[in-house]
């Protein structure tokens, strides 16, 4: 404790002290500002809207929004490990930093692919939810090699439409518009109507 304090703040009497205080305060402030600007807190949540804070995720959001899995699984249900809590946040942080750096560097490709680590995560999550169907022996009989397929191939090699549809790429959703709740600055009532309704007669 003492040691840390010493390292960070100059001695009480030092004339550097006020300067340091101001500098630290601004750094913290800047941090908060950046966090807010990047909606950092929302990444802690499971809300799909969080991913859409980044516009390149909007196509995935929109296709998921139109998929059967919307009713059952949000982004993190598939894309984040669910084996233990530590792994979950570790993976999230790692992934988040990766996404953010690519994004900030404007290096996002037109058509993205999951990296191998992500694929494994998703595959495991498919199985996590569908373990009953996947282990159902009734498919063994009539789908050739289903057992091998189920264990050695990616689920979405067959179930291609799950959940982003069969058409991929960040421009493949025409007029791709971000959903409302991520941007709380706008309301759903246009200004003219708000004025009209609230105009006191």
């Amino acid at each position, binding site marked *: 404790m003492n040691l840390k304090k010493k390292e960070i703040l100059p001695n009480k009497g030092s004339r550097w002290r006020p300067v340091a205080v101001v500098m630290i305060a601004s750094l913290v402030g800047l941090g908060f500002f950046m966090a807010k600007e990047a909606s950092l807190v929302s990444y802690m949540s499971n809300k799909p809207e969080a991913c859409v804070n980044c516009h390149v995720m909007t196509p995935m959001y929109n296709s998921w929004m139109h998929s*059967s899995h919307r009713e059952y699984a949000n982004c993190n249900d598939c894309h984040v490990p669910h084996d233990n809590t530590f792994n979950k946040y570790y993976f999230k942080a790692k992934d988040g930093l990766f996404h953010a750096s690519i994004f900030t560097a404007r290096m996002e490709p037109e058509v993205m692919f999951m990296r191998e680590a992500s694929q494994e995560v998703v595959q495991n999550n498919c199985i996590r939810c569908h373990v009953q169907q996947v282990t159902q022996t009734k498919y063994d009989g009539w789908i050739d090699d289903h057992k091998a397929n189920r264990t050695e191939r990616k689920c979405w090699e067959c179930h291609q439409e799950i959940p982003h549809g069969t058409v991929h790429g960040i421009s493949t959703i025409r007029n791709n518009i971000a959903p409302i709740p991520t941007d709380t600055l706008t309301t759903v009532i246009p200004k003219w109507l708000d004025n009209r309704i609230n105009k006191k007669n």
Partner: protein
Amino acid sequence: NRKNEAKYKYVPQVEINENEPRNEEWGKNFPAEYQSFLQTEQGDFASFQGGNAMRDMLEEDTRLAVLWAGYGFSKDYNQGRGHQYAVEDIHNSLRTGGPKGNGDGPMPATCWTCKSPDVPRLMNEIGIAEFYSGKWADKGEEIVNPIGCADCHDSKTMKLTITRPALVEAFEVMGKDINKATHQEMRSLVCAQCHVEYYFNKNTPGKEGVPYLTFPWKDGMSVEAMEKYYDDMNFKDWTHKLSKAPMLKAQHPGYETYLTGVHADRGVSCADCHMPYKSEGGQKFTDHHIQSPLNNVANSCQVCHREEAEKLRSNVYERQQKAAESRLKLEDALVKMHVEAKKCWDLGATEEQMKDILMDIRHAQWRWDYAAAAHGASFHSPVETARVLASGLDKATEGRVKLARLLADLGHNKPVEMPDLSSKEKAQEYIGLDMEKLTKEKEEFKENLLPKWLEAAKKREATYGSKQVSAAQ
């Protein structure tokens, strides 16, 4: 931040003004949505009880004329068609009569509210209460574009938006803030601007005398809550021509009934079924061909249900058939009640003797209409629809027993003779409609006044122009 910068990937062709009413203009920027939207012009799909074909409801079910005797709907009532027809159909409907000019005709200007993106434009220009004021004919030349982009979208951000004050006000009255709606809720709320029960309130504080469009949701959206709302304020839409009952009309409470169904319970929105995703040329977009999902089971239902299209279709039909069965029983009872009540009056019944009976008729028919008027309700919420119909049948039992007793008192202790309802014409004649006159007036309107409206509108819109976006941008 970068998000805001990059909001639009598309290359806009034109700049779209706030409340731009011309769908073609929007279509220049969003051709896929526009093209699909144009398809609501199709009229070749008929399902068991829906679809986009022209279906004369009074012809299909002649009892309706009796139920609505003395009210506009007995003149003309068709199944809703595609959004593209909204303006054409209100022009053609005998309900709007044959106005000869400003200030003429049976209907108020409020009737335009749900028919066109010219509405938000005009409301913005002249004011809301001013929009609702006056006759339907007064605003004929202002409103020409059928339901379109500006009804549901913000022109700057393309986000979904609410442009109809009635919905905003109804939320306020319920103590809710519509701005807090989630994205998924918005995908139903844009529809709830129009597909809801409404009435014209002439006593809105500060707007007295104006037929102000109001959704009766203060006490809730159930059939009982709205009934209570109207009863408490002694409201009636009209006095029935035969029974003299103080009647209520339920207009398409689509959103209200949808909310009570299992799909709404699971967060499925109107747009999920009526505006599914579609792929064309390697691109996905929202299909703006709003229609019966039964004409598009693959993209709508089958996203969530893996059953065969035929099975899903028959699921829908089965629910509709079961509702129709109960509905028709209630209709039969209602016809009898109106005719029996008329007989009572003819035999000299007093107001006092009729009072309770007339309230039974009012309540029974209100329940029938609540269940019947939203054509989708028997699928959107089959259990609630059935409950409402059963409660209507119960009211009818009460009323008919009272009628039987009163008729006996008045010396007529036997079945009352029922009118011949074997055709729409006979039914309309029975309730005393002069259809020839109504049709002729409408023809004259279409020959004389309507062309003038369209002419004037064309001139006005020519002044709007179209602002090309410079290629450099």
